């Protein structure tokens, strides 16, 4: 089986499956929306959290780079070449730091999230919810939140009154203490 044959055969079998103009236009519209967003203050197209974050980071870096470039231009015109270079380097460093700050803990959480989801195939959010409920239950039960002491539980018993009439709902539970 040569790869040319494989590709050609698949293409011939799937030639009815084509990327429609509608899909193409939708991508272009969303791309245009992304481009407009930072300049005109329009709503950015946050189709996904990851790409939204990337856009935010790139805007932060872009902003600093542009500022540095302008600053360097001003200084160059005033014949301060070294100072301009220094400013560019400083602005680039601050841009990189801004990028790092934006990532940080959230980045690590997302890495862990995607590792557990993709590699271990564990649904993370339901797991976190289940853990939260379990831990809350344990805390609730163990730390006397109910104000029922172990002694109360030990001394309590169930007594059925009027059992010859099938019992009554009220007064079934009697605390001997």
């Amino acid at each position, binding site marked *: 089986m040569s790869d040319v044959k494989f590709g050609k055969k*698949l293409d011939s*079998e799937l030639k009815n499956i084509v*990327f429609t103009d509608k899909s193409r236009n939708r991508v272009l519209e969303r791309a245009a929306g992304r481009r407009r967003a930072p300049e005109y203050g329009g709503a950015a197209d946050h189709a996904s959290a990851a790409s939204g974050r990337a856009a935010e980071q790139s805007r932060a870096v872009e902003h600093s780079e542009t500022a540095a470039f302008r600053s360097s231009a001003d200084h160059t015109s005033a014949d301060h070449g070294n100072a301009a270079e220094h400013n560019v380097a400083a602005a680039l460093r601050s841009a990189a730091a801004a990028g790092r700050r934006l990532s940080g803990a959230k980045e690590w959480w997302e890495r862990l999230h995607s590792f557990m989801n993709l590699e271990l195939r564990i649904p993370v959010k339901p797991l976190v919810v289940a853990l939260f409920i379990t831990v809350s239950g344990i805390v609730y039960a163990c730390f006397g939140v109910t104000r029922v002491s172990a002694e109360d539980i030990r001394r309590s018993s169930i007594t059925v009154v009027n059992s010859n009439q099938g019992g009554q709902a009220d007064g079934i539970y009697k605390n001997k203490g």
Partner: protein
Amino acid sequence: MELPERTERPGIEYTLTENELAALMDAYSNMLLRTAVLLLKDLRLAEDAVQETFLKFYAGYANYRGEAGIKTYLGRILVNECRQSRRRAWYRRNIPTPEFELELADESAETDIRSLHDRLSLTEALMKLNVGSREILLLHYYNGLTVREIADALGMPEGSVKSRLKRGRDRLRDILQEDFCDE
């Protein structure tokens, strides 16, 4: 397809124009869509995955360093998108849904690529493989990625890619031969 070269200077905005994005889509969209269809077995999910792939490439173009080819980079994004879609749709897989029906093209005119294996379509045979083998076979034989590029894209050692590639190829051959012997 070639994208404009970058100059490493601050203050220059590394973005694609809409025209370049459109040209990218013209060049690679059908191949990516067919790959996604084979990976997801659902045309709508596949279309969504391909759209997201192009948008992510567009949004993250500043991060594209040009070390890998565009096809490799797009393939990598697509495979991750398909994985995410499968994860998002995990509950749907557990509910019986109508069988995925591909409208396979009539091959009567394609005499040049006819072979003994025409009795069972390659698409159907690929659908019988597990997702891991299908991903690797498609990336290598259909999208044209090298073993190293696949290893980079999927984040696994080259040796694993090679062994999975061999297993997938053997399994595909078995499936096609079983069908041939049945007839």
